[in-house]
Each structure stands twice: as C-alpha cells, then as structure tokens.
C-alpha cells in the first residue's frame, strides 16, 4: 500500500512536473536559440560598402595612368592613353572580336574544367581510399600544384602538335591536382565522430560515403574546385598564348598574342582586361555564392 500512497500523488506531480518542465524548456529554447539574423544591409549600403571601393580605386588608377600619359613619361606606343585603350576596347566589343574570343576561351575553359572535375575527383577519391596510392603519388600531386603549368606547353605541343588536345593537356595538368587535393583534404578533415554516427545509425558503407562522408567533405572540395578553376583558367591562357594556329580559332590568349605581334599596346591591355574580367566574373557569379551558401548553411560564416 505504501507504494500506492506514494504513487498516486506522484502521478499528478509527474504530470504537473512534465507540464512545468516543458514550459521551462520552451522558455530556454526561446532564450538560447540564435536570434533570427537581422535583414542584411540595404542595397544602398551594400553598394557603398563593397562596390564603391573598387570603383574608386579603379578611377584613381586610371587617373594616375592619365597623368603619366600627359607627363609623356614614355612614347605612346609603349604607354597609350586611357582614351586610346578605351577606344580599342570598344572597337573589339563592337566588331565582335571580344565576344568571339571570350566564347572560344570560355567554352574551352568549361570543357577543360569539366574534364578536370571528373578526373580530379576520381583521383582524390582513389587517393583517399588507398593508403598506398596516397603515399606513392601524394607528393607528386602536391608538387604539381606549385609547378606553373605553362611549363607543360612545350611538351604538350611536341606530343599533340598545335591542337586543342595540347591545350586541354595543359589545362588538365593545371587543374586536376588542385581538385584532387581539395577533395582529399576535405575527406581527411571529416571528424571521425561523424563516421561513428553513421555506423551507430546502421548505414551501410556506401550509405556512409553518400550521406555522411561526401557532404561533410564538401567545403574542402569546393575550395579545391575554386582553386582548380583558377588554375585551369591560367593554364588555358598560357596555352593559348603559345599555341597559335588558324585552325584553333581565336581565344583571349591568342588575341593577346596578336597584340604583341602587332606591337599594339592598346590591344594588349584590352585583352588582359578581358581575361581578368572573365576570371573575376566566374569567381563572383559561380564560386563565391556557392561557397557562401554551403558555409552559411553550416553556420561556418560569421553574420555580416
């Protein structure tokens, strides 16, 4: 009977205790949880903060350039005026040369990067899976990352003559090591606890790779892709600059080479500007938003 005596009031108390407990719990949740982020700064403030400074800097640069031109420091075929270059730039845009060169280079870059993506990812996975392979080729892959890929151009031309194959070879040698190392680094940084979670939940080996390991490695992998693209783009320009042939069409690198051969400084500066603009555009429109999205979802970036 003793337990009934203690059990009955106990019942009511347990229930009331649970109700109270839930109320306290809900209060704690409300207090502890990260408050909703305030809406980001307005369009105007964002413009002032991030768009205005580079524009001001560019304007200053052009100003200094104009001063140097007016001061006649160098003859004008060495240092053309900003207006000359502007006119040349406008001319290449208007006659379609710029669009054609950008299209040729960008499609080559995209194809080369896509191939590097597949090969680099497979290589990264293989190196992660095989300790032996990692020991054997790890140092070489890392070393290749610091080898300027323009060094491969002569070899590629000898192997494949002046062809697209030669250009893609140089691009691949530039981008694959970065992508493979990025994926490998991302996989190595996955906390062992995550794999234990996968095993406790009863996921199969494939399930753990698919649902735990690869998503966990994504930030490192994205970093590798970003660097891989930068290297692919640089390698492509180096290759285009040197492999010049009518059958290859006219990419940005080839446009740059024409400027050199004609000693047309305004065309050279125009080409460099276009190469830079494409690189910055891909970075700003593709990789930066992708990376920001992944990091923000995981709470890895500080609120702006």
């Amino acid at each position: 009977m003793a337990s009934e005596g203690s059990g009955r009031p106990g019942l009511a108390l347990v229930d009331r205790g649970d109700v109270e407990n839930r109320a306290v719990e809900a209060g704690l949740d409300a207090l502890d949880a990260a408050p909703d982020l305030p809406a980001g700064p307005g369009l105007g403030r964002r413009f002032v903060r991030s768009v205005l400074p580079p524009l001001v800097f560019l304007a200053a640069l052009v100003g200094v350039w104009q001063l140097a031109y007016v001061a006649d420091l160098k003859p004008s075929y060495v240092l053309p005026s900003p207006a000359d270059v502007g006119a040349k730039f406008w001319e290449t845009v208007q006659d379609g040369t710029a669009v054609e060169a950008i299209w040729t280079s960008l499609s080559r870059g995209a194809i080369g990067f896509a191939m590097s993506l597949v090969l680099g990812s497979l290589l990264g996975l293989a190196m992660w899976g095989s300790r032996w392979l990692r020991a054997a080729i790890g140092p070489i892959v890392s070393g290749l990352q610091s080898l300027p890929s323009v060094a491969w151009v002569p070899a590629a031309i000898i192997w494949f003559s002046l062809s697209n194959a030669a250009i893609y070879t140089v691009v691949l040698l530039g981008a694959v090591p970065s992508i493979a190392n990025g994926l490998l680094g991302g996989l190595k940084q996955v906390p062992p606890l995550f794999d234990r979670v996968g095993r406790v939940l009863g996921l199969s080996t494939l399930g753990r790779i698919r649902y735990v390991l690869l998503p966990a490695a994504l930030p490192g992998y994205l970093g590798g892709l970003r660097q891989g693209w930068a290297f692919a783009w640089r390698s492509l320009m180096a290759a285009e600059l040197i492999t010049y042939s009518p059958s290859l069409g006219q990419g940005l690198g080839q446009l740059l080479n024409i400027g050199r051969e004609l000693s047309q400084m305004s065309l050279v500066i125009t080409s460099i500007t276009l190469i830079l603009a494409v690189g910055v555009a891909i970075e700003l429109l593709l990789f930066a938003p992708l990376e920001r999205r992944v990091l923000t979802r995981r709470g890895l970036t500080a609120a702006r």
Partner: protein
Amino acid sequence: MSTNVATVEAPVRTPAVRPAPAPGPAAVRVAGVSQVFERGRPPVLQGMDLTVAPGEFVCLVGASGCGKSTLLNLIAGLNAPTTGEISVSAERPALMFQEPALLPWLTASGNVELALRARGVGRAERRAEAERLLRVVNLEGHSGKRVHELSGGMRQRVALARALAQDSKVLLMDEPFAALDAITRDVLHQELTRVWTEQGLSVVFVTHNVREAARLGQRVVLLGSRPGRVVREWQVDIPHPRTIESPGVGTLATEITRELHQEISRHGQ
C-alpha cells in the same frame, strides 16, 4: 502487487519502484568481458559483468580510466571485446554521445530522417515520423532549423529524437548532458525520464556526475578504474517524480561519492 493495482487503475507512467525483472532475455548482458587495446598494456576492462533488464534505467559512474565509454562502444557493437560475451536484445542499440554529433548540413528534421532512412523507412513516411519524434522531445516548430541555429540543449534533444528514430528498445548514453549548463541539464533529466517511461526503453547511462546518476537511475553501478570493473551497485528506490534536489537523491549521492573517493584514493597509494 500494489504497484500492479495502481497500474491498472490509473496509468502511472513512472513506476515508483523498480519493476520486477521482466521475463525473457535481458536487454543487455555483459558477461566476463575484458578489453585490451594494445598487447602488453593493462586491460581497460577486466571481468566486467552487467545485466540490464528490459525497461530498466541503469547508470554507470566512475572516475577516469574506468572504461565507461569503452564499455558502451562494446555494447553498441562498434568494437568487439577481447574476451567475454555481450548480448543485446535490440538488433542495433541507439547511442548518444557527449557531443550532439548532429550533421551540420542537415536540418533538425534531416538529422532525424537520416536515422529513419538507415532503417529503410520510405521517403513519404520519413518526414512525418521525424516531425512526430521532434514533438516527443518538445521541439515542435524547430524541425526546419539548422544545427547552428539550435542551443546546446536543443541539439541534444534532436540527438535524442534521432536515437529514438532508430526504434531500438535499448538506448546507450555516453555522458550526454555533461556539456550543458545546470538549468538545461535539469530540464533534460525530466525530459529523458518521461521519454524513457513513455517509450519503455532500457537505458544504460554513463556519467561522471554522481548526483545525476542518483536522480535518473533505478540502479547505479560504480565502476573501478584501471582496469574497469564493477565495484558496487545500489538499487535506487526513491519514488518519482524526482529532482536533483530530492532529499533521497542527495543522500544516495553522498554515499556513492564516498565510495567513489575510496576507489579513487586507492590509485594514489
């Protein structure tokens, strides 16, 4: 007998006294288990015996080096014992860690759904079931939040919901509340007690915190260190509802602590 009468008359959710061991196989049976990680080094566990009845809540306390986590890993099937036998009634016991160990790229609901997916639950059911389990741990309305948007206590409750999603009657907990502040911990003690009785779980709860063990357990097992083995155990007949301040809890904790200190002092001699 009187306990049974009470159960029939009104759904007493928290039994005041430990139920008689249910017939049938034990929820967890550890028999003569020793664990040696490296040859030539002293064993981490030696001659460990532990039986957990179905529906029982057992707390393991001990100082560093008592092999608490090793024992849980063995019961969870993550490692195999060097010698001895382990049997668990559930096919795969659920395990909660000190860290919530939630996957940060998934929402609260996504983490729970992953456990359901591992069990082969269909896509359509997963969403609804995860929602239900999050309600069980009082997280209704938070299912779409990402891990970094949740407080420490909320994360551990998501981890508890994920463990429940494994639909295992055996729940292993490795100091799950050690990293939480005192208020949150008290609240989660009550939450866990409720979930345990509602779901009819067998729980093995490892902790450094003697008071916590006395507050939660139906039985407290004191483990000795180097090698880990059972030193003594206490039946806890303090009626529910308990709180960390309940007089019985304090008295028992004092007694366990005294014993624990003796065990620890042995190592300094």
